[in-house]
């Protein structure tokens, strides 16, 4: 009898929920499923469901959804790398009016990047990727090196690699990350990563040449392992301490701590990039596809996800660095991080986030990224000259970006 009553009540409340609450779906990639599960009870008026796919599949699915005009969630998570191709595609709801009053609370460079060429806000930042360098303390101060000296500029950084090599330690897993960091983190104001404001290719510019040169110096000096990133060998390299540094977004900390190399806690530190460069590496956005069945409820969810408390919760749950700059004064930003041997790293991340020069996402970013990486592969692995590789890449970019 009692169970029947319970079942009846449950059925009734389910029915009620179905009638009054909007069912909305958010499409995204890990670790946002963890975050959504942790926070969805805070928005009881809507029934939130998450469709999770891995990073690549999620974006492929989104492309198909946009192409066919159906199948996308009410809210979609978009990696910054795709923003340039997506914001001008006309498939998303203009959020300018909703976002207007609150845009000032978020890192301005990221807000800018979410705008289309028409100046309207199609995507809003939810997490950021302040660019940093993770380093092994046992190969740095414990061996008598001075961090500030090593990070003075890129040459001192490479010189540090040469010293490490004598001790049989690699500077970095794959030299390509150095080139990537260099050209990502030295973008002039108003420029895109690969194109200037007028859409002209920049890939033969000094920024790329120098980045390639640095990577080549490291590769030729035998200071890297030529290990493919995001593969088992790379993870093993972190676990076994094969290499001393890795540059990436601040988010790498979450991966290192949670699953790549949890046992190396206390051996790591984080630093600004050589020469004190500020830059961004990664970050995610939220947007509402025009095909969304319930855009109003979708905005409720976005607003909730980018609210100060939830941004902080995301930082704690999945180490997603908040886009909301108001969070940076939270006491938790002064906490020391055990994994980084007690370093108060969050202040550094916040400082970087506040100082990043905006990089304008461009239509041809995805094509240019592929072709530049291909050129880098040719320089590092096939001995093609930097000049030729970049020229070839530029020629192809010009042809391909139509």
């Amino acid at each position, binding site marked *: 009898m009692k169970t029947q009553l319970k079942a009846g009540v449950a059925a009734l409340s389910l029915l009620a929920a179905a009638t009054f609450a909007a069912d909305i779906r958010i499409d995204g990639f890990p670790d946002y499923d963890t975050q959504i599960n942790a926070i969805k009870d805070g928005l009881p008026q809507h029934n939130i469901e998450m469709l999770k796919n891995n990073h*690549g599949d999620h974006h*492929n699915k989104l*492309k*198909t959804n*946009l*192409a*066919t*005009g159906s199948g996308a969630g009410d809210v979609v998570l978009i990696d910054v790398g795709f923003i340039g*191709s*997506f914001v001008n*595609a*006309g*498939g998303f709801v203009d959020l300018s009016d909703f976002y207007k009053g609150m845009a000032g609370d978020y890192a301005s460079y990221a807000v800018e990047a979410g705008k289309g060429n028409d100046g309207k806000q199609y995507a809003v930042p939810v997490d950021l990727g302040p660019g940093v360098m993770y380093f092994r303390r046992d190969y740095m101060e414990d061996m008598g090196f001075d961090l500030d000296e090593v990070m003075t500029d890129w040459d001192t950084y490479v010189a540090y690699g040469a010293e490490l090599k004598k001790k049989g330690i690699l500077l970095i897993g794959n030299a390509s990350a150095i080139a990537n960091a260099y050209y990502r983190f030295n973008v002039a104001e108003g420029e895109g990563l690969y194109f200037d404001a007028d859409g002209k290719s920049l890939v033969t510019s000094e920024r790329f040449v120098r980045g390639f040169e640095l990577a080549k110096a490291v590769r030729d000096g035998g200071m890297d*392992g*030529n*290990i*493919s990133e*995001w*593969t*088992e*060998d790379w993870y*093993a*390299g972190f676990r076994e301490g094969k290499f001393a540094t890795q540059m990436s977004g601040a988010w790498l900390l979450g991966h290192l701590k949670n699953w790549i190399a949890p046992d190396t806690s206390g051996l790591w530190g984080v630093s600004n990039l050589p020469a004190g460069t500020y830059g961004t590496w990664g970050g995610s956005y939220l947007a509402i596809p025009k095909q969304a069945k319930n855009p109003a409820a979708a905005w409720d969810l976005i607003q909730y996800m980018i609210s100060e408390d939830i941004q902080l919760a995301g930082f704690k749950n999945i180490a997603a660095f908040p886009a909301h700059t108001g969070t940076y004064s939270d006491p938790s930003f002064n906490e020391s991080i055990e994994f980084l041997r007690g370093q108060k790293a969050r202040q550094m991340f916040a400082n970087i986030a506040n100082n990043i020069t905006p990089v304008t996402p461009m239509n041809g970013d*995805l*094509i240019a990224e*592929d072709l530049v*990486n*291909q050129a880098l*592969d*040719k320089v590092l*692995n*096939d001995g093609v000259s930097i000049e030729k590789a970049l020229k*070839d890449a530029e020629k*192809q970019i010009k*042809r*391909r970006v*139509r």
Partner: protein
Amino acid sequence: MNSDIASPHDLTQLEETGTQKRERFLTKFTPYGFLSPYILIYGVFGIFPVFFMIYLSFHLWNPVEGLSSMEYVGFENYVLSLTDPQLWQTMWNTLVMAILSGVPQHLFALPLAYFLVMMGPKVRHWLTTAYFLPYITSTVAVSMIFYVMYSKDSGIINAVLAYLADAGWSSWLFGGLKDVLPLGWVQENSLIRYSVSFVVWWKYVGFNTVIYTAGLATISHDLYEAAKIDGANSWQRFRHVSLPLLKPFIFFGVTLTIIGNMNLFDEPFVLTVGGQFAQTAGKTISNYLYQIAWEWLDMGAAAAVSWILFVVIGIFTAVYFYFFGRQGLGGE
């Protein structure tokens, strides 16, 4: 065929009643009703894409911008693709890997099938099943396992080679490897084609073996006996009895290999981690067209590339038919 059933009615009856008309309609179209699920699915997923792709290859289309953004560009996509150095590079990569994996497949499968047949039905059935197993296993799963085995630092292949280079009994042969180990099987442009080809070979050799065993089973035992009486040894029986009679099967198998290998996608895709590494030598034309379509969001150019690939495969197959078709198809 169905109209045959209905036609006697037409002749004898000048005027049809409503019921008869309906009946006639039903007899005529009921079979199509039963066939409709297949026709529908084949139409939507088989026929329509082919024609849509012809249409697409003359348009500029970024799928993310929706169907309405399609823009007619004439032959631009074809011109762009045919003058693209990467297209020819990937075409060459595909061809090299097709040969590296295709030729050994048949050279290995033929004698293997012969031995299997010689061993008698019991052994043959078990072993054919075993050899066929890779073929029915998911390509992606297989490639991922191979990826782990090829791994530079933690892979079993490098571990075994390192052991052989070190161990006393084998170092005379493998000692030279010491300087180059660990080998980046899937990182190095110089090795990737072999690494990919081996996986393809491993996966399809069983399929060809099954074709050849089936072929050998069709050859009458009398012929072998006659040859034996004439004094032919085992090799001569294989060379002069089995091989000529297997020609149609070889023809079939090789044709499938040509078409399949030129479309090679999964193995190189997984082994190069989605085209991130060793892509200069390891990227096939199918990988490239996937990249153009789904990473660069240029569906028109991708459609043009796939038609170019279609023509190339057509040419290869036509050349093969021209030289071997008459024998292969059993004619004189």
